[in-house]
């Protein structure tokens, strides 16, 4: 008995001391934030990233011209102020006097000229180069038609950076909150080549610097004492811990190994709510889960038929039963939550499910479908338990209408490869998360020329409204009205079948403060503190 207790005590002591090491807890008084992030970044090079997992980390490491605060509202970043020309095409940014890189060199307008050119230079092969296609010559630089030097950016003087756009773009400032527009350090890239991004080498201008990066284990950021607002940065060390296994993440949170996590095993939502109470945070997020439908293929080229299918799908059931309320029923492409914009909901959104089913049945009968001539429809989806359950539920919902639904599952790469190559299909699962807070990001993907127009939607009325919105760039209210008109066309003609709006689901320790819920799910570590 004595021996057993002794063993237990020893193991416990060892575990305590090692657990300290495991969480990389440094010396006394340093505040460490162990931040669960559902995946590792693909790259820490702002010009090579595309995912939200990277966005969290890069927002801590770098500072763009403008940034977002804890409520995802726009705040000055490396630029302390800016002016827009009367025609809305020229943005002049005044850089802050106390902005420095982590090596002590000042952040200059030349750094931004270099960084904007680098994002668009074809040699960089940036996935998000298109973010700056709105800049004059942006697209031509990226496609190699003109040299990067021709890009519409210039350093007026060391602290004045000027950008010329193709046309007035009211969401340009919002776009600049995206990590792909952050500045990178020219001197270190030229000196170190591809190694500039390694811990110890990386020179950044944000609230934190990179200390360690072990793939699939942790990324350690330490507070940057040279950051202009360092006095207000409360957390000394942020450890980004990839939490691919969501169940493990919950247990690690419970054991105190994580202070927050940005995803939950939604199938356990009821239990988690009971266990974690207020620490569980779920709310609307700017993202839409939808089905693309081939609008240029028989029989789906008939908007009435597309509408009947869309109408018959019980979105409340999907949200409640399949997604355990971790998603919200969706009837528009643009999710609610963008200031000044009212989403155009499907006409049947307010009707009861029974009425909708009756109407859908009528339409199908009118079009000649019935027990003798069932409508055949194939749903393609990428591998995921919830995508499968969603498709199965829709299959069951459409069965009483005499629609013969078959399912086809492929892995993610095959799925999107097939869509991108305009392969043959009826209906395919897709999703869209906002890059910036503007309806454009959701509507642009249904434009005829967009590579993401999986439905092959081609509507002159929609294109016209979108063009009008672009032309109204200088007048925000008029522009929003035109965008609403465009969405009305898109939804009425059923260019896509919107099913659900995404929601964020965070698990946040009650010890953390400043981790505010917002529709962009943006939580810069510099505004967070820990008891």
């Amino acid at each position: 008995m004595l021996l057993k207790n002794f063993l237990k005590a020893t193991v416990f002591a060892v575990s305590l001391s090692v657990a300290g090491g495991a969480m990389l807890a440094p010396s006394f008084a340093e505040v460490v934030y162990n931040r669960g992030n559902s995946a590792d970044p693909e790259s820490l090079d702002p010009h090579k990233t595309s995912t939200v997992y990277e966005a969290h980390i890069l927002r801590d490491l770098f500072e763009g011209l403008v940034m977002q605060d804890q409520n995802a509202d726009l705040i000055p970043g490396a630029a302390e102020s800016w002016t827009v020309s009367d025609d809305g095409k020229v943005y002049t940014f005044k850089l802050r006097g106390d902005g420095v890189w982590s090596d002590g060199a000042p952040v200059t307008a030349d750094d931004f000229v270099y960084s904007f050119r680098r994002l668009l230079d074809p040699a960089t092969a940036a996935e998000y180069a298109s973010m700056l296609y709105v800049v004059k010559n942006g697209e031509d630089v990226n496609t190699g038609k003109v040299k990067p030097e021709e890009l519409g950016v210039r350093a007026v003087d060391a602290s004045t950076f000027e950008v010329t756009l193709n046309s007035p773009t009211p969401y340009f400032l919002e776009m600049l909150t995206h990590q792909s527009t952050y500045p990178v350090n020219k001197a270190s890239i030229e000196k170190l080549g591809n190694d500039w991004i390694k811990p110890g080498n990386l020179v950044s201008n944000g609230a934190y610097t990179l200390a360690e990066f072990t793939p699939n284990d942790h990324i350690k950021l330490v507070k940057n004492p040279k950051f202009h607002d360092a006095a207000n940065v409360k957390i000394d060390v942020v450890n980004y811990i990839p939490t691919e296994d969501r169940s493990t993440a919950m247990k690690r949170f419970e054991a105190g190994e994580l202070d927050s996590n940005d995803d939950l095993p939604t199938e356990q939502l009821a239990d988690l709510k009971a266990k974690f109470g207020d620490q569980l945070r779920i709310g609307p997020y700017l993202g839409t889960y939808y089905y693309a439908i081939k609008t240029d293929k028989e029989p789906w080229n008939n908007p009435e038929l597309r509408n009947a299918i869309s109408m018959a799908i019980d979105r409340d059931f999907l949200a409640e039963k399949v997604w355990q309320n971790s998603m919200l029923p969706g009837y528009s492409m643009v999710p609610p939550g963008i200031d000044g914009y009212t989403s155009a909901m499907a006409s049947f959104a307010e009707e009861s499910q029974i009425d909708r089913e009756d109407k859908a049945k009528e339409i199908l009968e009118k079009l000649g479908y019935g027990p003798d001539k069932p409508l055949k429809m194939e749903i393609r989806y990428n591998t995921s338990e919830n995508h499968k359950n969603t498709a199965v539920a829709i299959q069951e919902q459409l069965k009483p209408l005499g629609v013969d639904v078959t399912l086809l599952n492929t892995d993610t790469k095959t799925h999107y490869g097939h869509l991108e190559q305009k392969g043959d299909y009826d209906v395919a699962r897709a999703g869209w998360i906002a890059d910036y807070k503007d309806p454009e990001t959701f509507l642009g993907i249904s434009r005829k020329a967009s590579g993401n127009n999986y439905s092959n939607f081609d509507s002159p009325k929609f294109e016209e409204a979108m063009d009008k919105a672009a032309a109204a760039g200088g007048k925000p209210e008029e522009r929003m009205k035109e965008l609403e008109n465009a969405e009305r066309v898109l939804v009425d003609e059923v260019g896509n079948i919107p099913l659900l709006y995404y929601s964020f689901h965070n698990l946040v320790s009650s010890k953390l403060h400043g981790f505010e819920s917002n529709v962009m799910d943006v939580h810069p570590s510099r505004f967070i503190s820990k008891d």
Partner: protein
Amino acid sequence: MLLYVFRRLLTAIPTLFVIVTLAFFLIRVAPGGPFNQERGLSPEIKANLEAQFGLNDPLWQQYLNYLNNLLHGNFGPSYNLPDFTVGELFAKGLPISIQLGASALLLALIVGSILGVIAALNQNRLGDYTVIAIATAGSTIPTFVIAPIIQLVFGLTWMLLPVGGWGNGALINKVGPVITLALPQIAIVARLMRGSMIESMRSHHIRTARALGLSEWSVVVRHAFRGAVLPIVSYAGPAAAALLTGSIVVETIFSIPGVGRYFVDAALNRDYTLVMGTVVVIAIFTIVFNLIVDLLYAVIDPRVRYD
């Protein structure tokens, strides 16, 4: 013996070549590519990416380039983790997977053998049934069930172990993953050991040893065990190759930064160079461990000679 080793290593070269060639072309048959994702890329941007990684060259040229790089020890860049080369990813992850795998294998061989011998010596008695029950349970309960139970019991309820994480290699962080990896292996080794030990105990040389009046300990350990251990050795070779190259289930559940997950992730992500890296690594491990097994045979079984 040295000559034999040399000959075996020499024949490994064409084997590796065939494996590399097959893998290179097979992964290209899979639809989609490394740059297909939820957010579609415009053809121009995709062309830039493909140009950067040489994916717009004709396939035969890509193949020759790959072989050339491989001969120079260069596994190429990872497409999906461009901050790292495939070589760097393995340099960071492989030592971790080897540590866990080797510990688990060692544990399995020791515990499994002891359990197997106990069962064999108590054939059809309580000891035997207990071991068989443990072995059956161990080999039928999957690791994705065992791992969360260990996390719950030792991590959350008793708070003896961390739930997950590598903790920069702290011993305490290895306990859970090693036990999870070892349990099914213990079961297999115990069953193999039991069977071959029973057979060995019935063989002529054991009867002779007994007739000579040797002590039971000497009979069991020096004579019966030595003969019975051969099937374990044959099993341990491929098992070592598999264990040392990591397990996606255990690494994902315990958040361990090993290489096991690359085997699955790389293929799903169409990260061609990383797929090739995993294929080469597992091929080398398999070849080397098979060779070690054959050499061990010569050491253990006097009838086997490679001269």
